[in-house]
């Protein structure tokens, strides 16, 4: 699908970003990861959550972003901010329990919401593909209260077994985070994809389909996921991107197509 002025026509990344912008509450603290989360947060700041406290791991606190940052450490993350601080301070704020959400981008994910952004292959010192590593993801997934992951959905990304657990989800299931020493009551909250919104089952901590995007069938969601998904009893339909969301996204948030132009 191509970018178009017809508002019923939107590409999968535009859908992802618009849906992502709606889950953030105004006046909450959110630690924003690189890529799609930055676009969703900026869109949320423009439309739904003007007082959202966006925090960036390199030290930017509550900026009024003039446009999409390229990096979680560039000057836009402290543009008209309330504080230009340190990574130590930001991560300690997360560890202290002051940060409600973290919003992380694409990686491999398993049914407990564990993430791989480190490597593909069997030999750690000699991987088939080396990815960046944790960056701040492990810290944020460990220390913020609720983790939201935003990523396109396919069988390469939603896998039975990760080659490397970079960032903790629910690890092996209920109670595993606490046993490992991670802060009590923290953990995965939502996964937002181009097909659906997923949550987690309270008892098993397994991923559960909560809402299908317009025109998407449940079978299609399962086909794009290697592990078996649970389904919510009250399965909902996600409202499509609004005209206003798409306009602000295309004209103000990402006019250069840094993210929404990446569709294959």
């Amino acid at each position: 699908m191509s970018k178009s002025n017809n508002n019923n026509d939107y590409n999968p990344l535009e859908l992802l970003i618009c849906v992502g912008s709606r889950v953030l509450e105004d006046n909450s603290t959110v630690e924003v990861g690189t890529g799609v989360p930055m676009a969703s947060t900026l869109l949320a700041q423009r439309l739904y959550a003007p007082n959202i406290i966006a925090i960036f791991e390199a030290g930017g606190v509550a900026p009024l972003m003039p446009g999409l940052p390229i990096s979680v450490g560039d000057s836009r993350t402290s543009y008209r901010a309330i504080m230009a601080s340190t990574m130590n301070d930001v991560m300690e704020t997360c560890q202290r329990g002051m940060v409600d959400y973290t919003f992380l981008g694409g990686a491999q994910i398993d049914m407990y919401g564990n993430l791989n952004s480190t490597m593909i292959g069997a030999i750690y010192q000699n991987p088939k593909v080396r990815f960046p590593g944790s960056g701040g993801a492990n810290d944020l997934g460990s220390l913020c209260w609720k983790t939201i992951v935003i990523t396109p959905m396919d069988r390469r990304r939603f896998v039975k077994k990760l080659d490397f657990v970079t960032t903790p989800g629910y690890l092996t299931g209920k109670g595993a985070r606490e046993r490992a020493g991670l802060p009590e009551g923290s953990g995965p909250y939502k996964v937002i994809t181009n097909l659906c919104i997923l949550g987690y089952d309270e008892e098993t901590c397994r991923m559960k389909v909560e809402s299908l995007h317009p025109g998407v069938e449940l079978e299609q969601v399962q086909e794009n996921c290697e592990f078996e998904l649970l389904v919510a009893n009250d399965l909902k339909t996600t409202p499509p991107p609004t005209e206003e969301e798409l306009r602000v996204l295309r004209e103000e948030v990402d006019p250069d197509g840094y993210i929404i132009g990446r569709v294959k």
Partner: protein
Amino acid sequence: MDQELIDIEEGLEELFCDPDPDKARAFFKTKERGLVNKVTTVKDAVRELVRDSDYLAVGGFGHVRIPTAVLYEIIRQKKRDLGMAGHTSIYDSDILASAGCLNRCDISYVVGYEIRGLSASARRAFESNKIKKTDWSNSALAWRFYAGAAGLSFVPSRNMLGTDTFKRSAAKTIRCPFTGKKFAALPALYPDVGIIHVHRADIYGNCQIDGILISDPYLARASKRVIISAEKLIPNEEIRKNPQMTTIPYWCVDAVIEEPFGSHPGNMPGEYWFDEDFFRMYLETVKTEEGTQKFLDDYIYNVENFEGYLEKIGGLRKMTELRNLENLIFQKRAQQMKSRIKVKKQSA
């Protein structure tokens, strides 16, 4: 992942730096206390302060406020077997690894260029076992610098636990003597050389940074030797007018280099934006090994110094363009021009 992984108490990979605080104290005891002029050239600073097999820590954020001139000189002087804290590193670790300078790396972020994707050249370097790897997370390395800055041997933390990031680190777990809770114990990091680009410094090495500080105040204090490159030198009197702006004090610093536009192609907050044309060219050129070699020849080996490099990337005109982008001036002007054209059309 299985139960055993959760119960692992020690990371499996190598600890590259000795966390012993008394050895660190013995070194810091020898550091210069006097206010002496430390201004030098990048060539001399690298020749005298960076030795083969040293462990480096580079300030900034990989492509934001990076000490490019010093990194290029390390490559030009063909330093070898260096270790590095791959802490939020991007262009810095990429070019050092691509030029064959590194043989070990504490990784929290390498290979990636955030929303621009991955570097093929960094991938070739880090996927081979020529570089020995130990993984951490961003705050793990930030807190390891803090532990060094505080003169400790470790710091407890609540990240990394239960994951392969812990398993492939050199951290251990520890039980809190007060609460009985389990923590990760992160070993202090005392790098041999810290290299940081700042906005302003005086000749003694007192530094002012605008915008976010990332981990640099800690990195500077934990490092045994520190090289500062500064956008500009300012009189000591300016430092004393605003002492709250000094985030790195002179006694941490061994060399001061004045290097305008010294973070190119990286962003310098308040000064100039990323050179996106350069990053596109770089990521395209280094897709092949020959391309990497060509890049290193064209932009580093066959260039005498950083002034020569700046001329090559477009000189003052290019840097002015990047300054305007940083200050959002082009965008505003483009919008104004658009509306002016509209007005004209309407009136016509």
